[in-house]
């Protein structure tokens, strides 16, 4: 589904990605982990075409993403920070995104119900709280049925009930056979969503494999400690 080869990206002098090779097959779910500033968001944004790599190539569904915008029809993306034009109302935003994608999806009604967004539909986006904005953000992402789902810190600002709903949503998407990429700093969330992880460190893939493999390698019984001890492993 996604092939990344020799991806390099520099921001000024700061080399954020230093040769990433990654292949993600159809129906696979990967969590991209790593400390702050390890290049997770840059990697995701490169796949989306928002960051233009210095060298290397990215193919989505067999098509190169260079000078191409149609491939994004196959991606649903949840950005890290949700900020919308403050003068638009929630239902106008939903209509607008549908219009931009030329996709008269009807799944939004279901999601509005699920996250209890009905009372907010006629409110302006500028007046919503952070958590409610994140719910709108999630709604916009899950509204379409694209085969590739990219989620950047999806849990930010969500209350516990919405967090459970989000996990349920992800499980149902998983069952539909979608390819999912997710970043998060909340390990329990990662563990409940997927078992495959890619660990980035200073712009390189430091570990790729399953959580049991990671636990075996670091000799740590739980995931959180295994992740923490990856860094000490790096010193060996």
């Amino acid at each position, binding site marked *: 589904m996604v092939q990344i080869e020799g991806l390099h990206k520099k*921001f000024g002098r700061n080399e954020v990605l230093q040769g990433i090779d990654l292949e993600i097959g159809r129906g696979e779910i990967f969590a991209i982990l790593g400390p702050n500033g390890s290049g997770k968001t840059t990697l995701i*944004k490169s796949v*989306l*075409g*928002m*960051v*233009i790599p210095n060298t290397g190539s990215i193919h989505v569904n067999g098509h190169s993403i260079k000078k191409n*915008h*149609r*491939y*994004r*029809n196959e*991606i649903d*993306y949840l*950005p890290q*920070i*949700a*900020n*919308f*034009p403050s*003068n*638009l109302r929630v239902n*106008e935003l939903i209509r*607008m*995104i549908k*219009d*931009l*994608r030329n996709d008269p999806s009807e799944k939004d009604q279901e999601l509005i119900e699920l996250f209890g967004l009905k009372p907010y539909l006629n409110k302006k986006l500028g007046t919503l709280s952070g958590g409610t904005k994140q719910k709108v953000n999630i709604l*916009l992402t899950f509204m379409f049925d694209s085969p590739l789902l990219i989620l950047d810190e999806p849990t930010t600002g969500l209350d516990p009930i919405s967090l459970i709903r989000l996990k349920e949503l992800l499980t149902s998407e998983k069952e539909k056979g979608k390819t999912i990429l997710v970043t998060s700093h909340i390990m329990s969330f990662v563990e409940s969503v997927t078992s495959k992880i890619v660990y980035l460190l200073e712009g390189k893939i430091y570990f790729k494999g399953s959580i049991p493999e990671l636990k075996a390698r670091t000799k740590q019984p739980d995931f959180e400690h295994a992740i923490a001890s990856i860094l000490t492993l790096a010193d060996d």
Partner: protein
Amino acid sequence: MIKILKYSFYDLIRSRWTYVYFAFYLLLGIVLLFLNNDLSKAVITLMNVIIILVPLISTVFGVMYYYNSREFTELLLAQPVKRSSIFIGQYLGVALSLSISLVVGLGLPFIFYGIFKSVAIWDFVLLLVTGTFLSLIFTALSFNIALANENRIKGFGYAILLWLFMAVIYDGLFLISLLIFEEYPLDTFSIAATLFNPIDLSRVLILLKLDISALLGYTGALFQKFFGTYFGMLISSAVLVLWVIVPSFFIYRRSRRKDF
């Protein structure tokens, strides 16, 4: 692009600032007509206000809009939409909403005063057209500045500087250079210098149309002498169009290479 334009416009048309801007022009139009009691004189006073104020507002508004809609732009970038359409669409959205505030805000009081029955109608129309051009030009320039600067404070600073340069400093430098080099023939130089500043260009264009030789100034007089009134107007309009096209092209080019 049309879709992005539509939604940017929609967003802006509801913004408080668009109404403040609109109300300002409405008030300005009414006050000027009351004070002058004469359409032609009101048009001349308006020209002086428009030529300084429209660039200022367009620059500030353009930078502000770009920075405020950054996260939203990121949302759009993840959609199957061409990059250049996003930015050109937003640019046109801002420029058009500003132009409409100007045209409608000034238009209403003048229509009620009876501009259609007056001989000054074409002067007034030209004034609005020039105002629209200035909105398009300075919004495009401010978008370029904002695209080039991640830091909003810097972006704002450069934008204000640009306005200050074009509206005030440029004329000063121009006059100083005329004084220093007064022994040389300066006709070509001053015509070229005028072409490189859209504010001066608009002033010359309007003054040529109004045909007030007392107000033409040095460059205006040169323009008239060099090109004649009609050819001069044609040239200055053509250069104004170029002033819109070139910065828009730079928005297009820069937006394709930028990282978000």
